[in-house]
């Protein structure tokens, strides 16, 4: 998602798509060693990466489907197309981008946002990044904002060092799948001491039906540097299900800071199964802001591994589950070093029979003395058919710690509604105000333009919700 002010917003309807007839390559449905070798050959990759992919494919085959969380029975790995290449190259000027591709991203407001409020942009359509830019102000300090494929070509030694390091292929079935067939995603490197003051934005879009998007993102924030990376996700309306399974690995060095924001508004036919994890060194800080509104089913638990003394982690997550949606989201905080602290705030809204679940893990290891953790989960149920679950686990292995967990489940209070309506506000507007107020703490963490857009999206989702 990007900023969509007035006019530029007008042309886009949620669920639009264009024909895939001009795509440069579409792989046949199904997964085999041949498909993996084909992807690797297309990308002209070094041999070690192909070996990593094949090894991951073996792990993928050996792991059973997860039996917990959301219902994954609708995924048929044989019907998915694993690699779709929309254009020959990645472009650095919108003029070179094929018109129908450009039009799609223009309708979504990316072009306008790029000029005004972003330091750099990547847009990915199905399997490949089709457009990329980085403002000169940052590139001259040595900031790298590349597609993962470019990153592998330009910095093979960095990629080799960090690839699969914090999310190993054996972590879970979908991390293994990603490691086997990954394509696209971003590679970000921020040199020591550089503060990238404007956000970097990546935009992921699935355009083809029954396809899989497996982006791979690696962000390395060197000592004392600072960066905010935002990803937006949407997809068109098709009857067949598609799969989005990304892996994000972030390395926050000593004293560095990274914020990673996801605004996920997939169409309601996408399985969204993402593994994202950050490794934080001494006095570093990692913030995940995670907004999940779309998709059919989401399983996503942003994690912070606090490995250095005094490291901090924050996970702020919002989930909205409507009819036929299950948002199984949460967070993990693994404390390995002393004086580390983490905060997890989760707000979920269930409506129209939707189900939202918080699933979290807090683990404080034997060496993490004087560490603190706070978890707050609030859930709002908007009607009697909807469902909310909370599944937290707190594990503590030393005595000098403070761990707190709180959760509440409630509905919109009649007294709250009555108060607003007695001021002449309609019931629908009153409900919108209360829901926006419920998630305000999280929205405040976004840059202003995104916060405004987020409030609009919530309003849009709430439209006509009075039964």
């Amino acid at each position, binding site marked *: 998602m990007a900023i969509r002010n007035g006019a530029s917003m007008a042309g886009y309807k949620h669920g639009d798509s264009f024909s895939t007839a001009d795509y440069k390559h579409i792989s046949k449905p199904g997964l085999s060693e041949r498909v993996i070798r084909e992807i690797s050959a297309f990308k002209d990759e070094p041999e070690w990466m192909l070996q990593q992919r094949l090894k991951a494919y073996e792990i993928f085959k050996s792991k059973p489907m997860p039996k917990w969380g959301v219902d994954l029975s609708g995924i048929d790995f044989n019907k998915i197309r694993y690699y779709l290449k929309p254009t020959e190259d990645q472009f650095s000027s919108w003029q070179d981008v094929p018109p129908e591709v450009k039009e799609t991203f223009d309708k979504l407001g990316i072009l306008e946002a790029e000029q005004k409020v972003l330091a750099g942009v990547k847009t990915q359509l199905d399997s490949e990044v089709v457009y990329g830019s980085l403002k000169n102000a940052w590139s001259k300090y040595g900031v790298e904002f590349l597609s993962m494929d470019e990153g592998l070509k330009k910095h093979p030694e960095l990629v080799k060092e960090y690839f699969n390091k914090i999310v190993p292929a054996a972590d879970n079935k979908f991390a293994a799948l990603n490691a086997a067939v990954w394509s696209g995603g971003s590679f970000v490197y921020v040199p020591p001491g550089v503060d990238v003051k404007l956000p970097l934005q990546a935009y992921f879009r699935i355009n083809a039906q029954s396809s899989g998007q497996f982006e791979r993102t690696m962000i390395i924030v060197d000592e004392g540097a600072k960066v905010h990376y935002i990803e937006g996700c949407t997809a068109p309306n098709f009857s067949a299900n598609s799969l989005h399974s990304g892996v994000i690995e972030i390395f926050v060095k000593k004293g560095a800071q990274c914020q990673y924001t996801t605004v996920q508004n997939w169409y309601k036919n996408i399985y969204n199964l993402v593994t994202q994890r950050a490794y934080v060194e001494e006095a570093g800080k990692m913030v995940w802001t995670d907004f999940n509104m779309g998709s059919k089913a989401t399983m996503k638990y942003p994690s912070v591994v606090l490995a250095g003394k005094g490291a901090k982690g924050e996970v702020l997550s919002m989930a909205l589950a409507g009819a036929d949606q299950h948002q199984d989201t949460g967070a993990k905080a693994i404390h390995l070093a002393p004086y580390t602290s983490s905060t997890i705030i989760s707000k979920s809204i269930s409506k129209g029979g939707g189900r939202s679940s918080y699933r979290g893990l807090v683990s404080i290891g*034997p060496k993490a*003395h004087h560490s603190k953790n706070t978890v707050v989960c609030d*859930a709002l*149920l*908007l*009607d*009697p*058919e*909807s*469902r*909310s*679950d*909370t*599944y*937290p*686990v*707190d*594990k*503590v*292995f*030393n*005595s*000098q*710690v*403070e*761990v*707190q*967990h*709180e*959760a*509440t*489940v*409630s*509905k919109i209070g009649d007294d709250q509604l009555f108060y607003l309506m007695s001021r002449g506000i309609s019931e629908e507007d009153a409900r919108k105000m209360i829901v926006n107020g419920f998630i305000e703490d999280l929205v405040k963490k976004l840059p202003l333009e995104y916060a405004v857009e987020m409030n609009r999206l919530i309003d849009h989702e709430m439209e006509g919700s009075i039964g």
Partner: protein
Amino acid sequence: MRKIEINKSGRHLIELKNPGEEVEIVGVFEAKNKEKIDVEVIIHHQAPRTLANTTLKGVVRDQSQLKFKGLITIDPNCGQSSSFLTERILLLSDQAHAEAIPDLEILTDDVKCSHAASISNLDEEHLFYLMSRGLSKKQAEKLIVNGFLEAK
């Protein structure tokens, strides 16, 4: 209000089947030496206007292990029900291990439901206050632990 006391490891299922039923559940545990205590409490609301108040407290010493797993389930059509689950653990040794899992599964919107869990050591300030009044460290610790176990 029905009162239920839990004092053993194992799985405890508490069902609220009659409309308007109210129950208070309390469990207090002290684990020491190499003890392993594993308590699972399931509070299952199956009727409207039911109320449950659950409090689990534990003190963990030496090389002992304590695990609290609580689950509140509220079925559909159980409007106007309330359920609260509190799990508090004092972890007094670095060799001990504490785990708190407070789960919620809520299938009705017209409910009040919350849970809270905490795992911590004695508050240094509390200790300091009592010791500044002339109590030895041991006495002060004993007072605080007793207070923790008795408090509602």
